[in-house]
């Protein structure tokens, strides 16, 4: 689906998603600013701006990082995933406002270029308590920047999904940098334990969600297939696979999706060419296997995206003997047509 970024417009769901993001951000900023002005009226405009945008960005970052594991745990969260990049770009925008304004506030109008000042002012790299926390924020912002400008599918295709995915894994490093930016920064001044508790609660939630999602998948991956015949492994009884749906099996570290379509079974590689979505958790729509993440489609019998799209995934051989499904884990080259197996 090379051209999908042209094909997909701004449909109703995207609009709802974006309006919700805008509504959340507006509510947050309004509350933070007005409550601060009421209870702490000596605040300066600059500090309001710096703090409201930074805390909003961190809140968004937590939501963004929670969506992935939530979707892996329960498919019902998938609608949140589809436009996650909008959340990401929004988060970056607020982080940029915070970082940019901080650089101006704390470094401009001095005897040095503000960007140089950011790195040469506090140079206590060998002290934990005195560590230059602003540099940590800068590198986090740099990562968010790279992610935001490459968020469009155009870059996904030009960088290749593997490089793109690797780049986007740096979000975890950025998250760690942000946590330390806050713990070694403003929390060293705000001696109120509530902030430490909030940061820790956020981290514990995210770590728990990731561990739960991981362990769910590990269970799937750990299943042993011991019955083997001429290269085929016994995987499950045929009736376990619902129509238009699939089951995923992990053999030799490769995940394979076995789909049922019009009384036949077909097997394809489970990994979507777009961003690696789990094809076996998708569904057949209009005769095409449809990825649950962003809706890329593949034909069940040859693993190819319908024209004009050009994505291809590997296919596998399946057979049914006495109502039992046997799967050959040796892949055929991507896009190879296979006959499938008829269910009696």
């Amino acid at each position: 689906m090379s051209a999908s970024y042209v094909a997909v417009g701004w449909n109703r769901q995207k609009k709802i998603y974006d309006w919700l993001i805008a509504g959340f951000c507006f509510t947050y900023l309004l509350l933070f600013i007005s409550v601060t002005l009421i209870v702490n009226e000596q605040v300066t405009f600059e500090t309001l701006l710096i703090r409201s945008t930074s805390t909003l960005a961190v809140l968004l970052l937590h939501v963004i990082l929670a969506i992935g594991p939530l979707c892996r745990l329960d498919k019902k969260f998938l609608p949140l995933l589809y436009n996650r990049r909008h959340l990401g770009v929004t988060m970056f925008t607020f982080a940029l406002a915070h970082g940019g304004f901080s650089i101006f506030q704390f470094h401009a109008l001095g005897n040095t270029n503000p960007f140089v000042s950011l790195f040469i002012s506090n140079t206590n790299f060998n002290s934990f308590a005195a560590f230059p926390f602003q540099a940590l924020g800068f590198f986090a912002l740099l990562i968010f920047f790279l992610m935001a400008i490459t968020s469009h599918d155009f870059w996904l295709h030009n960088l290749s999904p593997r490089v793109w995915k690797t780049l986007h894994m740096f979000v975890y490093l950025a998250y760690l940098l942000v946590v330390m930016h806050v713990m070694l920064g403003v929390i060293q001044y705000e001696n109120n334990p509530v902030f430490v508790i909030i940061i820790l609660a956020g981290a514990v939630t995210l770590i728990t969600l990731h561990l739960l999602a991981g362990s769910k998948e590990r269970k799937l991956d750990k299943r042993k297939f011991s019955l083997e015949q001429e290269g085929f492994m016994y995987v499950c009884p045929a009736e376990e696979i619902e129509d238009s749906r699939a089951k995923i099996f992990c053999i030799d570290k490769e995940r394979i999706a076995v789909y049922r379509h019009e009384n036949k079974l077909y097997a394809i590689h489970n990994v979507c060419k777009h961003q690696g979505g789990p094809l076996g958790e998708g569904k057949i729509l209009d005769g095409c296997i449809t990825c649950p993440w962003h809706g890329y489609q593949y034909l069940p019998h040859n693993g190819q995206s319908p024209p004009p799209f050009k994505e291809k995934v590997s296919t596998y051989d399946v057979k049914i003997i006495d109502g039992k499904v046997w799967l050959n884990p040796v892949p055929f080259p991507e896009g190879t047509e296979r006959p499938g197996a008829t269910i009696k």
Partner: protein
Amino acid sequence: MDNKEFYIGWMPAAPGGLAKHIRKVVVILIMLVITAGIILALQQKKFSTATFEFGQLTEITGIYQQFPVPSIKAMSNLDASGHSSSLTIPLVGYGKSGAEGIIAELEKEKNTTLDKKTVTFRGTLLYSDGKTLLQIDKNDDPLTKISDAVVNVPPAIKELGTVRLTGEILDPKCYFGVMKPGQGKPHRDCAIRCIAGGMSPVFYVRNEKGEANYYLILDAAGKKMNEQLKDIIAEPVSLRARAVQYDDWIVLYIDGMNKITRTGGLSWFKTKDGDTYCGVSHTINVSE
């Protein structure tokens, strides 16, 4: 979610069961946003009442003095008993620069020296906690009057002995007016930039009663030591110094950097300002 329900973003609407679930998620998120906004806003430390009269120019007349820091000594009117008191107003430059640069420029421009002359400066006031400073900026045409003759009103000087204090070195412009918070770790880079820019460093100490005391810092020879201080600004330090009172400011003469030590430590779980940033300070007189 049953087998028939399947979500794809490019469809115009999500299937009913999913939509219901997402509505629940949205409600949870709204509550999260509201709680986070309120809690974070409420829990911030109180900001000081420091004021920077941004955009408002004031004329101050007094005796300009180069020592201990560039400042104006302004005299009050005589009170009922015939006494007058003085207020020493340190000068700061525009942005993150001290006053020395602009004073030198003004002296060159007028082809005279300012020290110990009666002057009128136009600038922006900043004040907090009984201390007042004046920002003078080239663009405000700051020097409106200058006397020809030197006036001789020496400061009231009092030796206070050697003191040991725990506190924080800060830049006075941000602390006494421009920024909030204008001290501590979040403000550290800025304080370093300001002090590197020639702002006279101020030592901030909290006493047992929670009241703040402020001191000026010079080296043993009475010279500025801004450059040397760079690495220990805006963090808790202990120092030993000779203290001398000049009118309403006390100057700490610090005989070398080995007289200043970091008291350090992280403040993740401390709840009292006293413990966190400045510790308990004591002014003890010790004979050298």
